[in-house]
């Protein structure tokens, strides 16, 4: 053992046989898609950065990207992968999905077409391309991050304090793309199929952390095929399931007020559970809440008809009460 240690110490570390390194098919996929990824520049303001990413989806210069302050500007500067510059104009928008189609005057341009995503399974490798932090300039290639598809779910998110309308399907992955300038870039599977469009920076309403996600290819195809968005239905479903327990919280001032119960409606689920005025609500549905606003939000998200625990502080005591919420009446 000593001899081995000395021997190891006296030489450079060995270089393992290159043949056992996993085959890298990513660079091939990138080579095919990268020419169709464009850098966008335009108006920015505050947290809305004046740069972003887009994907050419037709040879005559249609560019798919996310809707933002940048994409709604009168003119948008579009820089192609080879460094050529164009002036682009937004020609069509989808308010709900927050998608924009930008048009530049060109022909024989490299492009990719969104692919359906049913072949991609959770756990499959994905790669995201985008010009986050506008690291790339001119003909420099935008950045690439790799990860795996972590989940297929629906979006429940907010941007600062504003709830994001879109509540449709999304692809969640562990590559970090929740960065300025990333939105509008393509998400690829390992074979280079264009399976999603990187979403804008949002915070998950469930975890309060930034979500790395893409709009799946199906939604993109619908938008490009000019199919009506499912916004109205999705919104109705979302609002239909709002729950109510019949309490009113004390509101003094308007920010970060502790969740003290002001009044309990007689005969309401809260009254039945034994919640009283002056109770301080600590947790709803097993999750700690920070303030009155979070409390109201947590209550709305309870499932009507399903028993849920609510922890309150009454005097020096902590009580766990069982509440059965009802549907919020319109």
């Amino acid at each position, binding site marked *: 053992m000593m001899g081995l240690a000395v021997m190891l*110490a*006296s030489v450079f*570390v060995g270089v393992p046989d290159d043949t056992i*390194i*996993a085959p890298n098919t990513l660079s091939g996929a990138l080579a095919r898609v990268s020419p169709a990824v464009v850098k966008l520049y335009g108006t920015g303001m505050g947290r809305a950065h004046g740069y972003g990413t887009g994907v050419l989806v037709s040879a005559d210069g249609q560019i798919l990207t996310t809707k933002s302050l940048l994409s709604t500007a009168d003119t948008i500067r579009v820089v192609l992968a080879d460094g050529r510059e164009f002036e682009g104009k937004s020609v069509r928008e989808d308010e709900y999905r927050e998608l924009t189609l930008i048009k530049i005057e060109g022909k024989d341009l490299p492009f990719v077409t969104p692919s359906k995503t049913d072949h991609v399974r959770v756990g499959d490798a994905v790669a995201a391309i985008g010009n986050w932090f506008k690291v790339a300039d001119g*003909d420099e290639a935008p950045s*690439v991050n790799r990860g795996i598809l972590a989940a297929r779910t629906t979006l429940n998110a907010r941007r600062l304090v504003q709830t994001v309308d879109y509540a449709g399907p999304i692809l969640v992955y562990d590559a970090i793309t929740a*960065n300025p300038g990333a939105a509008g870039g393509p998400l690829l599977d*390992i074979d280079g199929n264009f399976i999603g469009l990187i979403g804008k920076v949002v915070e998950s309403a469930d975890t309060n952390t930034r979500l790395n996600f893409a709009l799946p290819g199906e939604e993109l195809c619908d938008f490009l095929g000019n199919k009506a968005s499912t916004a109205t239905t999705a919104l109705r479903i979302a609002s239909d399931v709002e729950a109510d327990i019949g309490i009113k919280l004390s509101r003094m001032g308007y920010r970060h007020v502790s969740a003290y119960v002001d009044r309990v409606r007689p005969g309401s689920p809260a009254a039945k559970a034994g919640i009283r005025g002056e109770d301080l609500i600590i947790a709803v549905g097993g999750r700690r809440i920070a303030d009155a606003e979070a409390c109201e939000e947590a209550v709305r998200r309870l499932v009507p008809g399903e028993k849920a625990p609510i922890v309150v502080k009454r005097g020096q005591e902590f009580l766990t009460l069982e509440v059965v919420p009802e549907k919020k009446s319109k």
Partner: protein
Amino acid sequence: MVTTLALSILLFASGADDAPALTAADPAAVAVVRAYERARIELIRTITPTVVCMFSKDDQSGGGGSGVIIDPEGYGLTNFHVVAGMMMQREGKGGLADHKLYDFDVLGIDPGGDVAMFKLHRKEPFVAAPLGDSSTLAVGDYALAAGNPFLLAEDYTPTITLGIISGLHRYQWGSGRALRYTDCIQVDTSINPGNSGGPLFDMAGRVIGINGRVSIEERGRVNVGVGYAISINQIKRFMPTLRAAIATKHATAGFTVMDRSHGAMVNQILDDSPAYKAGLRLGDQIVTFGGKTITSANHFTSQLGTYPGGWPVTVTLRRDDEKKTIRFRLEDLPFPDVQRGPGGTPGPDPYRQTKKTRVANRAAVSRTLKQYELACGGAGAFKALRSITLTGQRTLASRPAEPQEVRFVENRPEGGAVSKGDPAALEAEIRWELMNTALDPAAAGLRVVRGDEVQDRICVVIERRADDVVTYEAAFDDENGRLLGIAFNDVASGKRVRYEYSDYRRSGTLRLPHRRTVYLDDVPFAEDVFDGVTASSQVAATQAAS
């Protein structure tokens, strides 16, 4: 198809033999994944002992960073900003994966490139990481980072993170206390505070960069999927002076460029700059710079930032649809203002020479000459050497069609390089002096002065100084130790005489150059091509050239 499946499964496999049962349709694909996992674990095992957790000497809890050992003697690379606070004593402590702390000295610094070299002290040799070639990387390649993020490692075992190369040849402006990064490697490998100075490895365990900074915005100093490493190829040009404890400046061109139709055009030039003297003019388009085709002004600035001051570059320019190639030396860019401690208080002057830097310079001389001996045949190769006989042809540049037969017999001289007025005799004496000094590197009078590029190779230049007068310079290949050039002033003619050596081949027990080119004031004068180079342990009978 097999590949796709393999990669999909790879993300679930834990790599150990007790990995959860995989229900894959293709057992061959699972075998590929398992083999890859084992290889990766083995790779991490081999690179782990090369990674250093860097601490300042007096206060171990007050910050730190990472480093990597690149030479069994203990030479290592880190970021300048990791050692900037240690410049008063030029000392620190480095923790290795053997759970032990070792003292290190801070050697050379490259504040403009955010690189510094240190040397760990221990009797036994260290495990060192080999250096890679960052010019061969592709976006999508896997890249491993090793270091001590958040100073997590209480026992100094490094944290390993894996990701891919997200971008290449990136240019990152310096701002505030962040230094400028040129032509750097962008990775999605997690790089966090404390990773600074640590190595970025390719999947063969070669160092391809030094992790130094991250893009941060809105979320504080944590990984947001965008890390940057200084490319190892840039660092290689600074290595000769880093080892010799010299503070090295970056280069400035003496001209600036602006974007013009997929290229860069000279829009300002100083008329006393070497570039101007070499023939560059306002309006010229820079087609290539240092062998790289220049696509934009930004690209040019990024490439320029990878050179030390005084470095020779070849530039192809276009003027009125005509191409022309020129070669000149870049000038020095002043050091960035780094003499500021936390809160803007003046810090120690990192550029002053101390006893430590002089000791390090002597060690660098002795290392270079030892390498030279190894390159010429192995340790002790020069010991028994008494004479060298060279036979071949000499072609004068003025008479290219008339090669002459030549024969030189050299016996080991007793003294050093003493000849005055005879360049040919002096050249032979210098070579012998270098061989003699290789046997006793403690001999005074030599020191490393700079790095250089000779015959497209990165060289360490050693200067011989006697009575405060430089008598000669010798350039050795920094990677393989070969003597590539000698230069001195000829007293009689007042010309700069330069010899270059190439075509190293085995001749008996030694490996010696078979080609020698002579330049007078950088103009080719003669070329010797030897078909017989005989090294002998016997004194040879001196014969005049035929």
